[in-house]
């Protein structure tokens, strides 16, 4: 099923295969050379994987049996990917079980077993929710500096490229020049933006945007919100108010609540996800900054605990550096052993 099949009735009209857009030559605003999606993802994750699999290979080197030392070293490796002590221990414990049940004997099989276990955790249905009403409303939330505004621009472009009439709402009225920042991105993506003065009530801005998007018959409305730390009571209440106000105009909206998480962050990401989920109900995660050397392993514990799928990943500053999350290639890239082989793909 196409990823952007967001309207039940319009399935055949609007469906655009993600793979098709991959073959375009993406225009990057900062002028970097763009590659195919998987090439880029692998490249992004390769710095990750180099270390991860490099270590993995070293660990397996010359081992004939799976012993406690090997398992401990593996656990350490998982921890360095920000997977967290608990999740890492959980995964290693289940491997340990298999070893003691003798279903797993060969160290070489261990890698596949690990891969499978992580995949089992993160491989949730990550297609966008489908609705029958318009506009399809997406709201993007998260703590400060995770990349909400940039991700929104990229999302907008994806929707637009799928043939959907898209508009943005500048809901971050708090941070200095955040509205201007989104406006510049909107311009680059070629979509209109609904904005009000800095410092205005974000709930009012987004409410007006919903009304306006309805009146002007937009297919998709994506609302930005100010970055807020999840432990700030007042700011979380403000977010709740935004949701309340949206529901007045569209009871089933927002149709997607996307939480932006920074792949660089450690165990606090879980605390963020929990709190935002508790307050407003997250429907999906956007994992950003995978083009660095951070592994984003924290996501595994989050998905495991909250059962919220990762829907998109961000891996660069270019307009096309956001793609639907693909669990298999994520794990594949994470465990990839041969760098050259990946480059061919």
């Amino acid at each position, binding site marked *: 099923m196409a990823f952007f099949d967001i309207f039940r009735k319009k399935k055949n009209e609007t469906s655009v295969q993600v793979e098709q857009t991959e073959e375009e030559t993406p225009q990057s605003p*900062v002028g970097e050379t763009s590659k195919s999606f998987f090439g880029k993802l692998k490249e992004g994750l390769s*710095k990750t994987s180099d270390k991860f699999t490099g270590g993995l290979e070293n660990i397996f080197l010359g081992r004939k049996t799976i012993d406690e030392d090997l398992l401990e070293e593996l656990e*350490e490796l998982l*921890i*360095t*990917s*920000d997977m*967290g*002590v608990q999740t890492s221990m959980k995964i290693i414990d289940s491997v340990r079980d298999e070893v003691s049940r003798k279903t797993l004997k060969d160290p070489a099989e261990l890698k596949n077993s690990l891969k499978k276990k992580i995949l089992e955790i993160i491989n949730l249905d990550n297609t966008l929710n489908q609705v029958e009403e318009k506009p399809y409303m997406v709201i993007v939330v998260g*703590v*400060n*500096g*995770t*990349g909400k505004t940039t991700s929104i621009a990229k999302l907008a472009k994806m929707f637009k490229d799928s043939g959907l009439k898209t508009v943005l709402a500048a809901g971050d009225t*708090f*941070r*200095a*020049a*955040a509205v*201007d*920042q989104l*406006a*510049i*991105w909107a311009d680059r993506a070629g979509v209109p933006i609904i904005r009000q003065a*800095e410092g205005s009530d974000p709930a009012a801005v987004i409410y007006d945007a919903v009304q306006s998007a309805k009146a002007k018959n937009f297919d998709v409305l994506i609302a930005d919100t100010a970055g807020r*730390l*999840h*432990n*700030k009571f007042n700011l979380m209440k403000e977010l709740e108010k935004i949701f309340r106000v949206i529901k007045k105009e569209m009871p089933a909206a927002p149709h997607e609540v996307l939480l932006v998480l*920074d792949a*660089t*962050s*450690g*165990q*606090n*990401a879980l*605390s963020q996800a929990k709190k935002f989920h508790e307050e407003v109900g997250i429907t999906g995660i956007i994992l950003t*900054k995978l*083009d*660095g*050397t*951070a*592994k984003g392993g*924290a996501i595994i514990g989050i998905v495991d605990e909250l059962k919220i799928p990762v829907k998109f990943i961000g891996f660069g*500053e270019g307009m096309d550096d956001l793609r639907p999350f693909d669990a298999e290639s994520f794990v594949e890239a994470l465990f990839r052993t041969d760098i050259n082989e990946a480059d061919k793909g």
Partner: protein
Amino acid sequence: MFNTLNEKLTAVFKGMRKQIRISEENIQDALKQVRIALLEADVNFKVVKRFIENVREKALGEAVLKSLTPDQVFIKIVHDELVNVLGGDDPAAKINLNSKPPTIIMMAGLQGAGKTTTSGKLAKFFMKTGKSVLLVAADVYRPAAIDQLEVLGKQIKADVYTDRNTKDVVKIATDALAHAKKTAKDLMIIDTAGRLHIDETLMDELVRTKDAVNPDEILFVADAMTGQDAVTVAKTFNDKLDATGIILTKMDGDARGGAALSIKEVTGKPLKFIAIGEKLEDFEQFYPDRMASRILGMGDIVSLVERAQDAIDPDEADDLASKIQKKGLDFEDMLKQFKMIKRMGSLESIMRLIPGLSAAGPMNVDDKQLKRIEAIIQSMTPHERKNAKVLNSSRKKRIARGSGSSVNDINKLCTQLEQMNKMMKRMKKKLGSGKDLSKMNMKDIFKNM
């Protein structure tokens, strides 16, 4: 989440109370718990390993002081070592002001770390001390970053140097320096674009900017929520730029901030400031001891223990405790306890140190209340203080008049005393009659409360 390390360590050392030294055997599990706590706080894996080794060396053979339990001694060793690594009392954690102004400060870090906001905060920090500051908008990549700095400059009434006609950051920095000299600024703060440490072109741009204006301070700005990768990022930035200090942002979040330890460890550069809120004045100097407690997730039991050690004369406490145990608590004892507690500081400050309580929200303790109770007790005759039972209504009326309170207040106090005695009895039962209450430590008492 709070206090977990304390609880785990207490459990580890349970049944070892009689051992007077920390030994190779009893330390294993304890170190394991510290390791987990540090990893959960996002301290880098390798940094944890080194740290644990140091703690092991320091802890082995450490004598357990009278009145302290091994877990308390151990946690103090861990805490002290952490403070030590985080900077101890290093006076270098200040901004080096150039004797020939302007002092040039360059900010650097990943995207979204908070450089622009922090530039504004840093400017405000100096302006409060009467310094004039020029903010320099050198982030030519992020959309509206220049606008953002201009808005911040307006908010704090600082001049902002911008040049929207060029993307040449080196030119912007050198022109800004000339401008700062011309306008006789004390400081100039260069806000640079966020960049990945592996982006060679952009890292090179920073190096060229550095070479062009020769900053007095290069501050690496890092998000307190950063995970294991903090070491790689910080090391690369420091290798390329030879940073002079570190600023940790988003410290008002609930991240334990283990990245602080990782970054300090791999760069060896001092942590100078922390950013702690949405407002521009939410910015303060870095304190290693507070950070250590935060990383360990332990409230500040260390300060509490230290304060108690300073304030309480152990012999006096022993006498009091054995007396209470034999005869029960009376008003005289209450007064004595209040005095000891008062020596430890305000009630609120004590409560804050108790792990778990600090997370429970704003404190609602009133030191005045203590004073009122003291006044009531002091209005009693010595006999009344020792025998609450004799307090009839005419005595109560007299005491109320004497202390400026109501009979109702005195009734309340009597009830409190009764409850405390009941609690004490329960505790005694729980611990077994053979145990001496005076040998109990603070933590056990809190636990039983």
